[in-house]
């Protein structure tokens, strides 16, 4: 019953992405925040959701998508992630400049900010790698290793960053989303044997 399986997978994905957003939208903290601060927080939540989507897209775990479409979506979602990270930092900067300066210079009193900043730089690096993939002068295997390495730091850094924060996200939905992101990343790395595969034209 391929249709039921397709529906189940997409339905589960919809729930996994919508529930954390809805839960964050119910947070009492929103009442005491300015629109810019709220937008900055939500950019972070959306970014975390996009981080879950990326391995699912490139690993081919979402049914009904051709390889070309999956790759294009992976690039689009990657670009959106980049935009979300920039919006997150910019919005927080507008809300409280000294706190963001502390974070960016690794002098913040809050340990989670360093994890977030490291993940931010790795998002920039992963996006840059995405840009130069076609012009990569070495074997594609090395490109994939480099991209995967940055992504491992992005996901780990983001998960620690998110879990240490007392913010608008619900604890349960945040934990679930982080676990799913970690599992999806681990699955795609093991399925594709990133550490040893050469150029694999499968997708």
């Amino acid at each position, binding site marked *: 019953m391929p249709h039921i399986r397709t529906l189940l997978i997409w339905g589960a994905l919809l729930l996994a992405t919508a529930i954390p957003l809805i839960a964050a939208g119910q947070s009492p903290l929103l009442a005491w925040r300015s629109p810019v601060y709220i937008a900055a927080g939500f950019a972070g939540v959306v970014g975390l959701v996009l981080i879950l989507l990326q391995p699912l897209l490139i690993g081919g775990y979402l049914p009904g998508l051709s390889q070309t479409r999956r790759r294009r979506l992976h690039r689009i979602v990657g670009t959106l992630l980049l935009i979300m990270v920039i919006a997150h930092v910019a919005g927080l900067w507008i809300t409280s400049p*000294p706190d963001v300066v502390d974070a960016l210079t690794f*002098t*913040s*009193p*809050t340990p989670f900010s360093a994890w977030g900043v490291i993940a931010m730089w790795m998002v920039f690096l992963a996006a840059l790698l995405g840009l130069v993939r076609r012009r990569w002068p070495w074997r594609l295997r090395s490109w994939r290793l480099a991209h995967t390495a940055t992504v491992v730091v992005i996901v780990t850094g983001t998960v620690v960053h998110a879990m240490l924060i*007392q913010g608008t996200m619900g604890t349960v939905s945040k934990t679930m989303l982080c676990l799913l992101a970690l599992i999806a990343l681990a699955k795609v790395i093991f399925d594709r044997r990133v550490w040893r595969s050469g150029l694999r034209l499968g997708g």
Partner: protein
Amino acid sequence: MPTSFFTRRAFVAAGCAIAGGAASGLIVPARAAGLDPTRTMRGGANNYLPDAPIVDRIGGGGFWMTGTVRRAGDGAPLPGQRIQIWAHTTEGHERDPHSHGATLTDENGQFRLEMPQIVPAFGQPHGHLAYDSGDFETVFLRPVMPSASDTSLEAHFVLQPA
């Protein structure tokens, strides 16, 4: 065998004497140096607005910021010291002037200022306090609430004469 008994007792006594001497050696200079001044915390001065007015209460109140101010060295309580307080609360952001206020310590060096409930901002429910009046060296504190549902927070200053 009395000899071995004596030896052991002598050994234990000597050990105690050495340990005691070492302990007192550690304690005495610390007493001589006295109470160390409080150091400014990372991020303590963020969103500081100098010269916050002395107020009976910040906004509608409901939350208590309390603490003590003492002198470095002898630990004497310092009355009449101005402590400035600000935080992200249910009534405003840290940068809003109406989120800032100041109070004076009483004759016991204690201060207590009512303010709106502090809510988590930038990942932690925290407050900011400043001593910045010139007689002593400036200190900025940034205490974090153990729980976001707490309705009070305390911070203690030990000030070094300027």
